[in-house]
C-alpha cells in the first residue's frame, strides 16, 4: 500500500492533464467525473495509507518512496520522493477529503460557467501541487508543491480574468508569495550548506549534531523559513494578498484560501519542528507574529461588509492562532487547529458561496437579511460552523483553539496568550455579526433578487462539513476533560514535544553552559510542554486550565451577546457607533491603510527606481557615452577620409603603424 503513495498526488495530475487538453470537447458530466473521481481515488488511497501506517509500530510509521533523481550537480543530489508518515497522513486526509467535498460542491456552483473544464483543470492541478507539498520528502520537493499551489492560486483568483480587479488580485497573490519564497530559498541554501542534503529525515536526524542550540545558523534558518510561511500563510507583514484573493470563485476560497494552501506554512513548521525547537528566538518570533496577526486581522473583520472579506480576515486571524501554537512549541495543537479549521472554515466559505449563489452574486451583507427563510440548509450548516469557530464546546473549534491558548499560557508566552485571548472574543463577535446580518433581521434584499436554496451537490458537502465541525474535535479531547487525545498519540512520532525536547537538551548539553544559558524561560517551550504533558498524564490537572477554559467560553458568549444586541435587537446602533468614532472606524474599515502604504512605498518605489535606471543610466550615461564616441569618430572620420587615397600600399603602412602604436600603448600601461 505504502509503495503507491506517489499515486495520491499523481491521480489529480492525470485528471488535470485530461481535462486541460481536451477542455471544451468534453461534456460537463465527463469533466466532473474525471475531476471528482481522481481526487476521490486519492482520498481512498490516503485512507489506505493511513491504515497501513496504523499497522506499524509508532516509531516505524514512515515510508519514503523515491521516484527518480531530479536535480544533481556536484554534491547536490535531490530525488523526487514522497514521504508518508503520521503528519503527512493527516494532511493528505484533510486535503483529499475536504478537497473532494469542494470538488463536488463546485459541480453545482460552477454549473453555468463558461470555463467549467478550465476550472476543474486548475482545481485538480492544485490538488496535485498541494499533495506534493505535504508528501514531499525534502525541502525542495515541498517547494515544488509550494510554488505549484501558488501558481494554481494565481490562476484561480484571476479565474474571471476579464475583470481587471480580479486579475490584479491574482498577480498580487503571486508576487507577495514570491517575497516569502525568497526567504524560503535562502533558508534552503543555508540548510544545504550545513547539512549537505535537503531531505527532511536526514536533516532532522542530524540537526542536534550539526546545529548549535540557539545559535545564529539555526535561528537564521528558522526565521527565513518563517518568512516563507508568512507569505504562503498570510501573516503580518505579507498577509495583504489573502483578502484580495477572495476575487476567485468561492469554492476556491474554501479549498485554497481557507482549508489547505494557506495552512502550508503551519505544516512546514510542523515538519521542521526539531530545528524550530532549537531556535528559541525564532520560536518567539513565530508566536508573536501569529498573535499580532490573530488580533490585527480580527479587528479588521469587525467592520467589513463583504461576506467573503469577513471570512478572509477571519482566516488570517485563525492562521495566526496556528502560528501561536507552533511558536510556543505546541506543534500538535497547531496541526489540530489546522484540521478543525479546515472543516469549519471550508463549511463557512461554501456556505457563503451558497448564499452568494442564491443571491445572484450579491456579496454585500447590507443587502441581505433573514435569509434563513429562503436557505434553511445553508443557514443551519453555517450556524454550526460559526459556533465551531467561535469556540463553544463541544464543537471542534473549542478543543483546538482552547488547547492553543492553554499551551501558550502554560509555556510562559503570556503576552501572546493575551493577544490570542482578546482576539477569541472578537472572533465570536464578528462571526455572529455576520450570521445576524445575513440570516436574521429585516430583509434588505434588492427587489430584483429572488433568493433560493442551492442544489444538493452544494448542500450535501455543507452537511458533511458541518458534521465534521461538530465531531472533528473529539479526536483531540484533552486529558483535562477526560479525553484520550488520540490525535496527540498519532502525531507523537513526528511532533512529540518530548522527543524534540530530548534532542534539544542533548544539543544544549553539547554546547555546555553557554548553550544552557540561552535556555531562558521564554525558550523552554518544549520543556514546559513536556512537563505539562506529564502532569496531565499523571492526572494532576492545573486548576488554571479549567479557569482559562471557562473564561474563554464565557468571553465568547459575551461576544455573541454583543453581536446579538447590536445586529439583531438594535441594528441602528452600529451606525451611530461608527459615526461617533469615525477615525477608528475608517482606520479599521480601510484595513489600517496597509495596502495603500505598501503601494506607495514598495510598488511605486520600485517603479520609480526602474524608470530612473532606464532613462538615466541606460539612455543618458551608457548610450550617451557610446553615441558621443560615435560622433567623435564620425568627425575624425571626415578628417581621416582624406587619407583614403585608394593606394593599397599606403593602407598597409597605416595598418602597421597603427598596430605598433597600439602595442606600445598597451605596453606603456
Amino acid at each position: 500500500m505504502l509503495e503507491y503513495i506517489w499515486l495520491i498526488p499523481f491521480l489529480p495530475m492525470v485528471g488535470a492533464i485530461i481535462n486541460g487538453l481536451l477542455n471544451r470537447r468534453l461534456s460537463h458530466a465527463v469533466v466532473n467525473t474525471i475531476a471528482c473521481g481522481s481526487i476521490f481515488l486519492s482520498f481512498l488511497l490516503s485512507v489506505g495509507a493511513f491504515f497501513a501506517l496504523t499497522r506499524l509500530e509508532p516509531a516505524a510509521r514512515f515510508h519514503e518512496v523515491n521516484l527518480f533523481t531530479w536535480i544533481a550537480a556536484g554534491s547536490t543530489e535531490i530525488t523526487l520522493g514522497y514521504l508518508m508518515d503520521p503528519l503527512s497522513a493527516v494532511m493528505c486526509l484533510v486535503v483529499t477529503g475536504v478537497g473532494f467535498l469542494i470538488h463536488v460542491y463546485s459541480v453545482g456552483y460552477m454549473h453555468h460557467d463558461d470555463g467549467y473544464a478550465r476550472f476543474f483543470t486548475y482545481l485538480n492541478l492544485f490538488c496535485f501541487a498541494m499533495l506534493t507539498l505535504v508528501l514531499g520528502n525534502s525541502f525542495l520537493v515541498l517547494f515544488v508543491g509550494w510554488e505549484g499551489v501558488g501558481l494554481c492560486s494565481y490562476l484561480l483568483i484571476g479565474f474571471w480574468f476579464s475583470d481587471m480587479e480580479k486579475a490584479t488580485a491574482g498577480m498580487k497573490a503571486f508576487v507577495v508569495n514570491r517575497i516569502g519564497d525568497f526567504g524560503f530559498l535562502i533558508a534552503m541554501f543555508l540548510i544545504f550548506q550545513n547539512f549537505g542534503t535537503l531531505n527532511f529525515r536526514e536533516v532532522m536526524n542530524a540537526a542536534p549534531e550539526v546545529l548549535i542550540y540557539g545559535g545564529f545558523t539555526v535561528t537564521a534558518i528558522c526565521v527565513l523559513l518563517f518568512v516563507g510561511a508568512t507569505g504562503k500563510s498570510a501573516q503580518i507583514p505579507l498577509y495583504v494578498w489573502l483578502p484580495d484573493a477572495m476575487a476567485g470563485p468561492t469554492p476556491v476560497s474554501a479549498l485554497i484560501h481557507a482549508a489547505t494552501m494557506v495552512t502550508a506554512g503551519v505544516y512546514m513548521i510542523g515538519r521542521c519542528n526539531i530545528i524550530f525547537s532549537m531556535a528559541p528566538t525564532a520560536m518567539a518570533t513565530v508566536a508573536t507574529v501569529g498573535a499580532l496577526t490573530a488580533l490585527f486581522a480580527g479587528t479588521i473583520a469587525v467592520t467589513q461588509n463583504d461576506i467573503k472579506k469577513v471570512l478572509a480576515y477571519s482566516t488570517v486571524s485563525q492562521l495566526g492562532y496556528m502560528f501561536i501554537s507552533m511558536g510556543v512549541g505546541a506543534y500538535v495543537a497547531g496541526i489540530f487547529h489546522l484540521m478543525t479549521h479546515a472543516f469549519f472554515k471550508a463549511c463557512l466559505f461554501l456556505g457563503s458561496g451558497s448564499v452568494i449563489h442564491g443571491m445572484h452574486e450579491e456579496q454585500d451583507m447590507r443587502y441581505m437579511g433573514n435569509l434563513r427563510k429562503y436557505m434553511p440548509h445553508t443557514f443551519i450548516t453555517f450556524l454550526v460552523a460559526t459556533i465551531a469557530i467561535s469556540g463553544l464546546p463541544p464543537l471542534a473549534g473549542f478543543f483546538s483553539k482552547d488547547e492553543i491558548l492553554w499551551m501558550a499560557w502554560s509555556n510562559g508566552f503570556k503576552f501572546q496568550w493575551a493577544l490570542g485571548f482578546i482576539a477569541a472574543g472578537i472572533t465570536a463577535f464578528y462571526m455572529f455579526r455576520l450570521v445576524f446580518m445575513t440570516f436574521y433581521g429585516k430583509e434588505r434584499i434588492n427587489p430584483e433578487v429572488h433568493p433560493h436554496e442551492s442544489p444538493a451537490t452544494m448542500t450535501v458537502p455543507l452537511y458533511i462539513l458541518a458534521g465534521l465541525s461538530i465531531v472533528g474535535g473529539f479526536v483531540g479531547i484533552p486529558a483535562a476533560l477526560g479525553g484520550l487525545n488520540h490525535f496527540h498519540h498519532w502525531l507523537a512520532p513526528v511532533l512529540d514535544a518530548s522527543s524534540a525536547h530530548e534532542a534539544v537538551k542533548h544539543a544544549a548539553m553539547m554546547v555546555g553552559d553557554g548553550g544552557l544559558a540561552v535556555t531562558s524561560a521564554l525558550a523552554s517551550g518544549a520543556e514546559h510542554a513536556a512537563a505539562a504533558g506529564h502532569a496531565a498524564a499523571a492526572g494532576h490537572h492545573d486548576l488554571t486550565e479549567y479557569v482559562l477554559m471557562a473564561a474563554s467560553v464565557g468571553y465568547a458568549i459575551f461576544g455573541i451577546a454583543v453581536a446579538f444586541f447590536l445586529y439583531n435587537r438594535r441594528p441602528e446602533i452600529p451606525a451611530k457607533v461608527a459615526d461617533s468614532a469615525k477615525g477608528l472606524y475608517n482606520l479599521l474599515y480601510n484595513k489600517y491603510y496597509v495596502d495603500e502604504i505598501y503601494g506607495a512605498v514598495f510598488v511605486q518605489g520600485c517603479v520609480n527606481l526602474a524608470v530612473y535606471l532606464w532613462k538615466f543610466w541606460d539612455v543618458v550615461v551608457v548610450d550617451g557615452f557610446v553615441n558621443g564616441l560615435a560622433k567623435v569618430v564620425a568627425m575624425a572620420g571626415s578628417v581621416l577620409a582624406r587619407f583614403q587615397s585608394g593606394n593599397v600600399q599606403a593602407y598597409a603602412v597605416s595598418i602597421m603603424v597603427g598596430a605598433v602604436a597600439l602595442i606600445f600603448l598597451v605596453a606603456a600601461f
Partner: protein
Amino acid sequence: MSESYILSILAFLPLAGAFLLLFMKSENVGLIRFWTLGVALANFVVSLPLLWLFDASNPGMQLQQKYAWISSLGISYHVGIDGISFWLVLLTTFLSVICIVSSWSVENKVREYMFFFLLLETGMIGALISLDVFLFYIFWEAMLIPMYFLIGVWGGKERIYAAVKFFIFTMVGSLLMLVAIMALYYININAGGDATFSILEWYKLPLAPSVQMIMFAAFALAFAIKVPMWPVHTWLPDAHTQAPTAGSVILAGVLLKMGTYGYLRFAMPLFPNAVEAATPFMMTLAVIGIIYGALVAMVQKDVKKLVAYSSVSHLGYVMLGIFALNPQGVVGGIYQSLNHGISTGALFLLVGVIYERRHTRMIEDFGGLSKSMPWYATVFMVVTMSSIGLPGLNGFVGEFLIMLGAYLASPVAAIFAASGVILAAGYMLWMYRRVFFGECDKEENQNLKDLTKLEWGYLLPMLVFVFWMGIYPGFFTAKMEPTVDAWLKQVDDKRIACSELVDENPIAMFFTEDVSPSE
C-alpha cells in the same frame, strides 16, 4: 573514424546550402523556403547522432578532427566538443530549424534572408566547435556579419541604428580580444612552446598572475559585451527590439551564449588567477545585471523590449553561476543558458505571433487577449512561468543550482540574486496581466485568430523542452557534469601552479626576445 566528420558537416552543411541558394531565382520563394528548411532540418538530423556518439563519461574533447591549415603560423583546422559545448551545438541546430519555420512569413528578400540565416548557423556552430583560437576568431567574427544584416535589412523602424550599435559594441570587444590572442600566441612561443593556436596547448601555458590580469581583461570585456553583462548591455534591447523575430530568437538563444561559452572555454581556464582576483567584481556585475535587468524590464512599454531586458537579468544568473566556480554553479550556469535559449526564444516567438497580427508590440494596445486567443494565452502562460522559474519547468532547475552554487561561494551574492526571483514574477506577470487579462475592449483585438498550425509547429517543440528540461534535467546534466568537474579541477590546478610565477611585463617579453615563429 568516420563519425569524427560529423562536426565538420554540422559546421559547413549550412554554408554549402547557403551558396546553393544563390543559384535559385529570388522570386521562387517557395523553393527557397523549403530548401532552407531542408538544410536546417538535415543539419539537425545530422546533429542527433551526437547523442550517442558523445561519451558522457569522458570529460575531455571528443569527436576531434585536426588538420594543419596555415602551418607556417601553426594555425590548424581543429574541432571537437566536450560537455560544455555539446548541448549548445544541439541547441543551435534545433533553434535554427525553429527559426526557419517561424520565418515562413518573411516576404521581403527571402533568398537573402535565408542565405544570411544559414551563414549564421555555420558561424555559430563553427565558433562552438573550434579548438583552434584563430579558427574560433574567424567564426566568431563571421557570426557578426549575417546578424548585422538580419537586423539592418529585415528589422523594424530603428533598424540601422540598432544594427550599427550592435556591430560597434561587439567589434570593440572583439578587437581587444584579437590583440590579446596575438599576445598569447607570442607568449606561448617565447615560453618555448610550438607556434600554435590550439586552445588545448594554451591551457598548459603557465602565466604570471599579472600577465593573466591584462589578458583576462581583454577577453572578459569581449565576452561581457556579448553576454551582455551590465553595464555594456545597452546594445541588446535595441538589437532585440529591431531584429526580426527569428533574429531575436537566435540572438537570445545562441549568440548571447557565445559570451558565456567564451568565459568557460577561454577566459577562465586560460587565466585562473585573474579569475580568482576578478571573481568578486564579476559576481557583483552579475548581480547588478540580475536586479537591474529585472527592474528596467518592469517599466518597459514594448513587450519585446521587456523580454530583452529580462535577458539581461537571466544572463546575469548564468554569469553568477559560472563565477561561483563550483559544480552546482557551473552546471547550473550552462543549464540556465540552455533554458534561456528555450524560454526566451519561445517568448520572442510568441511576441512575433502577435506582432504579425497586430503590427504593434506596445502593451497598451492589448488587453483581454485570453478571450480572443485562449490557446495563445495558455502557451504564453506556460512560457512565462518557465521564465520566472516555476519548479517543474525548465527555468527553475538552472536558477536553483546557480543560486545554490552562488550561496556556497558567496552568500551575499546569492541573497541579492534571489531577490531577482521576486522581481521576475513582478515584471512578467504585470505584463501578462495587461496583455491578456481585463476586458477585451479594443475592436482590433476581438477577432484575432488563435494559433495557426504553423505556429503550433514551432511552439510545440519548445514547450516539450520546457517540460522535459524541468522534470528530468538529469538527461541533460549527465552529459555536462564530468566535463564540468574536470574543468573545475583544471582551473584550480592551473591557478595553484601559476600563483607563484614571477611578474613580468608581458608585452615587453616579446620585444626583448626572438619573436620570429617561422622555424
